[in-house]
């Protein structure tokens, strides 16, 4: 049915990418066409019944600035801004400014002055995490055997977090810092929120506020919180990483192993088949992964691509990078930044720590954000949802595969039955797409566009912009937390014929999925995904 519709409309839209090509659908869709559609030319060859929603122009610098009041507040709580990003992504030249809003580092309602204060605060917090990383690295380099036992983080079901960087004693500036239990409906500088549980996952339905009641593990991290000497902090916070290395003066409590002990309540009994990885393992794997990071970002980030050899080597030494002799300076620099931020994240969110694939998610953020602390907090914002992909118990992954399966079943029972026959109805074959959010299947630019659209949806939900508001205004597909999953389902549905007629085992489907790289069009995918959201979101969510 769908295929028929598609071939039918393709005739009318093949010749011209302009809005006139969709004339035949206008009647049904006039509510969507307040803004004239003018797709980017290279998308013009794509046909779909939803071609009227082909990519609008990306958010431009001019538009972006025009959204702000003189005090630097986004008008209408950012609604117009999010709508714009949702339909066309963001112009590359302003990504570094826009992403912190999309990722909840800045509140959509914040003023310029408030953001400046947040920025200062975030910078300090990040520096503090980095100082701890350096101390831990120093310990492990010294071969301190205790380290393994001391910084052991277990994968108990109960969430663990480090109290230090959120401790009441250290809060001073901004509201989110005063309440780790920020209501998800009103994002107040969400980047400082503790990572919240997955709302839709049954076993983790508590929000951050509830964690304390549910047997939350407390971390005896005397080092990072109120006990840290403020002298030490103020004297070091502005120094670049390379100058800070292993300064003996930093010593005091933080280098004493007993203060970096992270304990956890193992009440929920981590399954015996899993061996917990410790921080030392993460340190090692992060370094291995950093030097083999994808290098596609280089052309999108000329300033970083031209980093001097001297700077690159310094940054490598500062984070203790290894085996990088074969890499060009820009790759060394990128790898060193990956290490710095991933390590800091592992301390910030020790329940997740480091898991392979996280570097795939961080790398594009690094390419866009020149400052490490900004990149870190954007990554934290990204991980608020994506962290569930990296849980050792795989609850997050399974939930998502389940939703993809449900979407396919609801949309195309015939295909679903075929998958059942191949014992592939669990949709395991889209595993990689789920884990690294299409990063391996799409190009750098396509991936980033998809993420921006997805982030805009998630930001709208965080800001409490409900379905009704979107309906009233223009877009029929309401914002969803799971746009990615609709896009993945769309991607599978686009190949239904091939799957049904050609593939006779799940192995073949996995292979096909893994070989999709370079063959997908992100805007077509998003068109189809939105189509699915329109028709199915009530059933699925």
């Amino acid at each position, binding site marked *: 049915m769908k295929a028929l519709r598609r071939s039918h409309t393709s005739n009318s839209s093949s010749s011209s990418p302009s809005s006139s090509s969709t004339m035949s659908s206008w009647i049904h869709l006039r509510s969507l066409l307040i803004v004239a559609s003018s797709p980017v030319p290279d998308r013009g060859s794509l046909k779909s019944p939803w071609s009227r929603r082909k990519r609008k122009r990306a958010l431009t610098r001019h538009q972006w600035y025009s959204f702000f009041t003189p005090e630097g507040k986004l008008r209408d709580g950012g609604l117009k801004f999010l709508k714009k990003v949702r339909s066309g992504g963001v112009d590359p030249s302003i990504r570094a400014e826009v992403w912190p809003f999309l990722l909840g580092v800045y509140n959509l309602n914040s003023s310029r002055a408030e953001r400046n204060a947040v920025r200062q605060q975030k910078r300090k917090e990040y520096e503090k995490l980095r100082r701890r990383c350096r101390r831990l690295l120093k310990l492990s380099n010294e071969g301190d055997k205790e380290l393994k036992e001391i910084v052991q983080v277990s994968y108990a079901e109960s969430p663990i977090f480090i109290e230090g960087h959120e401790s009441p004693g250290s809060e001073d500036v901004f509201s989110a810092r005063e309440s780790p239990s920020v209501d998800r409906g009103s994002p107040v500088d969400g980047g400082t929120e503790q990572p919240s549980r997955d709302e839709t996952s049954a076993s983790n339905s508590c929000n951050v506020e509830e964690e304390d009641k549910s047997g939350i593990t407390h971390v005896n991290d005397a080092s990072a919180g109120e006990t840290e000497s403020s002298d030490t902090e103020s004297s070091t916070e502005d120094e670049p990483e390379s100058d800070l290395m292993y300064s003996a003066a930093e010593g005091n409590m933080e280098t004493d192993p007993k203060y970096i002990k992270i304990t956890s309540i193992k009440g929920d009994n981590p399954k015996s*088949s*899993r*061996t917990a*990885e410790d921080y030392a*393992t993460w340190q*090692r*794997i992060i370094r*291995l*992964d950093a*030097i*083999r990071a*994808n*290098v596609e970002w280089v052309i999108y980030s000329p300033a970083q691509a031209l980093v001097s050899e001297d700077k690159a080597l310094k940054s490598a030494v500062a984070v203790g990078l290894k085996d990088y002799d*074969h*890499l060009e300076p820009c790759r060394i620099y990128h790898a060193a930044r990956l290490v710095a931020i991933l390590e800091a994240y592992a301390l910030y969110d020790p329940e997740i720590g480091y*898991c*392979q*694939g996280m*570097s*795939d998610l961080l790398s594009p953020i690094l390419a866009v954000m020149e400052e490490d602390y900004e990149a870190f907090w954007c990554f934290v914002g990204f991980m608020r949802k994506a962290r569930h992909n*990296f849980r*050792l118990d*795989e609850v997050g992954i399974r939930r998502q595969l389940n939703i993809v399966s449900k979407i396919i079943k609801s949309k195309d029972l015939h295909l679903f039955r075929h998958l059942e026959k191949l014992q592939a109805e669990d949709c395991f074959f889209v*595993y*990689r797409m789920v*884990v*690294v959010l299409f990063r*391996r299947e799409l190009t750098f630019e396509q991936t980033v566009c998809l993420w921006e659209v997805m982030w805009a949806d998630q930001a709208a939900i965080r800001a409490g912009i409900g379905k009704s508001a979107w309906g009233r205004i223009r877009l029929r597909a309401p914002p969803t937390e799971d746009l990615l999953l609709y896009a993945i389902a769309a991607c599978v549905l686009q190949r239904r014929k091939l799957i049904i007629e050609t593939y006779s085992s799940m*192995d*073949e489907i*996995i*292979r096909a999925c*893994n*070989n999709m790289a370079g063959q997908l069009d992100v805007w077509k995918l998003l068109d189809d995904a939105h189509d699915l959201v329109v028709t199915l979101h009530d059933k699925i969510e």
Partner: protein
Amino acid sequence: MSYAYLFKYIIIGDTGVGKSCLLLQFTDKRFQPVHDLTIGVEFGARMITIDNKPIKLQIWDTAGQESFRSITRSYYRGAAGALLVYDITRRETFNHLANWLEDARQHANANMTIMLIGNKCDLSHRRAVSTEEGEQFAKEHGLVFMEASAKTAQNVEEAFISTAATIYKKIQDGVFDVSNESYGIKVGYGGIPGPSGGRDGTSSQAGGCCS
């Protein structure tokens, strides 16, 4: 492409030991110095010839980190052969072999053929595990052992092919019920009974993703 038998392999071992590079060298005869880390599982295939019979190797390449272990585990079942890989320049990857082996023994079928590979033997100046240690470990655990280099291709063909030869021998010896696909062996059209006839040649290659 027709084959006498299809053997399913799995490649396991710590992250960064060169599993994907070994596979790429075997299927495509090339080396990629910076290879994307593997998320979940990836796939490769190639035709080889043993005893004048075309045999298709279907190889699952797995992610090395613990977090992906339970996905990896689902691939042990249905594998006839496993390449257990460590990096001769990183001691810890050798130290973890026992864990991998335990995992394999627990989740794979008992007759799975396991080949131990000490990879990166081109980096002998950085060697952290001696050949003798590798041999010793293999001997203790009843594994076939080779040192190899995905970079120079040394012993790569040999590793995959001698594993296949061992499996083939087990078939000849009647160890497997080849009609039961859970052993990771599939009988092709050109296969049994008797010689396949037409096809011959040494290790004929069918590209990275033949089907």
